[in-house]
């Protein structure tokens, strides 16, 4: 086994995660219980879906800051078409996902055809999507959702549906990046965009795909969230992009693009989830929680940069 960057990132995190889980199991009575672990899984699933989506964008050396706002917009759109007896349950679900996809597609078009920096484009989308969510809902939570949709917050054979969604999305994404030509092209574009173009790859198409896919998954996360809180909340999803990007970077994906795996992202998501849950169980005040989480994010990115330099 080589002690290279991948090793450090992937197995370093497993190690840290292992210590955390052991420490929490010993120091608290409730952490190791099945109900708490199920709870952790449920809590991380939305961030997990977002993180998988944004992994694609980060791999192309881009970024998406609009995740949280698009979650809210998709949730509101979904809830608006989900009143009882209105449409079949699939309609609001697909509309919510499509809303996210549309936002992502816009991001991608502006980044590729418009040549605007991803940071700026998605910063703009962050405000626009939040504004649209407020306009669409008149600033109020959209309630009265059909049971067909809110049932999505439930379980199948003891496993929360949200967790199933996350697992399926992560599995598909992992297989895609490893085994599909377009997946390989994503790594190539992120690793050296100009060289990828010279090698005959359409950089525009690859990036457009990454942003659109990220948008679709954000839409899915919005639908899952709306189902859980049984309303379309225009103010939902605040700062969700930060947790998602943090998880991806902790998982070893380089902000410079071209390096990273879905497995790493899953581990990053779990790490953040366990830290959140552990701090709750240890009854750390939420003020301190924010500080600790922030330090972990910065620490992870610092490690990433240090690795990139060496």
């Amino acid at each position: 086994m080589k002690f290279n960057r991948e090793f450090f990132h992937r197995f370093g995190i497993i190690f840290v995660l292992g210590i955390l889980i052991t420490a929490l199991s010993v120091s608290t009575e409730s952490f190791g219980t099945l109900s708490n672990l199920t709870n952790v899984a449920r809590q991380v699933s939305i961030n997990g879906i977002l993180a998988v989506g944004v992994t694609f964008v980060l791999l192309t050396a881009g970024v998406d800051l609009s995740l949280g706002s698009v979650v809210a917009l998709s949730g509101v759109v979904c809830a608006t078409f989900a009143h009882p007896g209105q449409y079949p349950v699939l309609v609001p679900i697909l509309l919510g996902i499509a809303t996210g996809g549309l936002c992502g597609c816009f991001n991608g078009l502006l980044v590729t055809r418009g040549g605007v920096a991803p940071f700026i484009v998605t910063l703009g989308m962050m405000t626009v999507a939040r504004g649209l969510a407020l306009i669409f809902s008149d600033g109020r939570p959209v309630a009265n959702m059909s049971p067909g949709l809110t049932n999505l917050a439930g379980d199948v054979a003891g496993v929360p549906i949200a967790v199933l969604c996350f697992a399926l999305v992560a599995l598909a994404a992992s297989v895609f990046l490893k085994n599909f030509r377009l997946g390989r092209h994503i790594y190539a574009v992120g690793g050296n965009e100009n060289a990828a173009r010279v090698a005959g790859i359409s950089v525009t198409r690859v990036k457009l795909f990454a942003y659109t896919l990220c948008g679709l998954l954000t839409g899915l996360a919005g639908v899952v969230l709306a189902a859980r809180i049984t309303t379309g909340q225009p103010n939902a999803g605040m700062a969700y992009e930060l947790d998602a990007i943090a998880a991806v970077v902790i998982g070893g994906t380089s902000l410079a693009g071209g390096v990273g795996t879905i497995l790493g992202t899953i581990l990053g998501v779990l790490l953040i989830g366990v830290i959140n849950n552990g701090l709750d169980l240890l009854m750390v005040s939420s003020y301190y929680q924010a500080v600790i989480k922030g330090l972990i994010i910065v620490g992870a990115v610092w490690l990433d940069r240090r690795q990139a330099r060496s």
Partner: protein
Amino acid sequence: MLVAQGLSKKFGDLTVLKAVSVEFRPGEVHALMGENGAGKSTLMKLLAGLYQPDAGTITWRGHPVHWRSPLEALAQGIAMIHQELMPIPDLTVAENILLGREPTNAWGWLDQKLLQAEAVAWLKVLDCHLDPQTRMRDLTVAQTQVVEIAKALGRRADVILMDEPTAALSDHECTALFKAIRQLCQRGVAVVYTTHKMDEVFQLADRITVLRDGEWVTTQPASNFTPASLISHMVGRDLATVFPALTPASQEVVLEVQALTREPYFRKVSFQLHRGEVLGLAGLMGAGRTELVSALYGLLPATSGTITLKGQPVVLRNPADALAHGVGMVTEDRKGLGIIPALSVQQNLTLTALHRFTQAGVILGTQEKQVSQAEMTRFKIKARGLTQPIRELSGGNQQKVLLARMLLDAPEIVILDEPTRGIDIGAKSEIYALIGQLTAAGKAVLLVSSELPEVLALSHRILVLRQGDLALEIPASDATPEKVLSNAMPL
């Protein structure tokens, strides 16, 4: 005043400078001459502290010195002006000249008046009357050069090293620069200078040192040379490297280019390329060779003129277009436009031809691996394995991966831009042999190289570009280094 003694420098396995000794005197313009890759820039960078020598000493005012950084050299009065200038575009002329040592008053406030006055004073030394308030981005290249020189003067530099300062200048701008350089000499500054323009050397230089393949050839007063004798010193090497025998080319035209133009790089270039032929493209740096072949690969599309492939006129908007039409290319910029550093040897190798091992979007893993393994053996690529990241390979092996990548897509027309730059002799010979195999297999090769012996020995025909114009087209059998070089030199 500044003496280099037995300076050597290696990059990896590649020796770029071998025991070179030169002495530089105050008030003298000393020209370093040689072909691309002769070691001129490396020598300058050693003197300026950008590189550290592997062997040999630098003596400055009678004391041996070991500069660890350009800053240390600068503090001692040695400044280098780089080929690519590095001004801060949004600062003014004055702010750039006094960058890092801005005059301040007792409170630490910037003294604008003194700043302007000092800048004006240094510019005046060079007989230049630029407004010090102008932003750097609004200057011409020549003006930028002058500001860089003023900056060096302001730091009290006694030696100024200039790496091809006139490469991007018009004649008029050159005249201004030469005037400035003569001013410098009158003040007792030693100027070390490289250029590819023959007339310039004889106008400007007091003494000339010729380097060839990293080795010192001669140092003599400029008046001892004629342009012809200088060129023969520069190119006169033995052609000991093994070049493959040429197989005769067919008469079938696979590529025809007519009046291809993209200002300011090249204009009205027309030629034909035949099946089984190697067409060599010679010229100096900045003559537009890379830009011309980039246009044929869709990287930098031409603005007018036509490209005809096997009788069909085509428009090549991007490399994907070119590849679809059977045109492949390996660029001169291996790092920037070639390898994907983080990906493995295999992933780099199959990148262009990946569609050949893909079904419904899914990569056929076993097939990809088998093909990569075969290519690795065929090209004698030295790597720990297919999964080793390509960035860990030597330049020659990276180049072989890139050649394999391009050929795997089975192009009929192969463009090679400086395929042997910066790689060792062994890998070079292998690439030469490969070019022979390609033409024997009926492919057409367009070869750009700054190494004259290489172009002369490998090509059937030779085109010489001079400042974007086609200056000469001759069969390689009639071509001599002197003929090619004299046609490549700007008029």
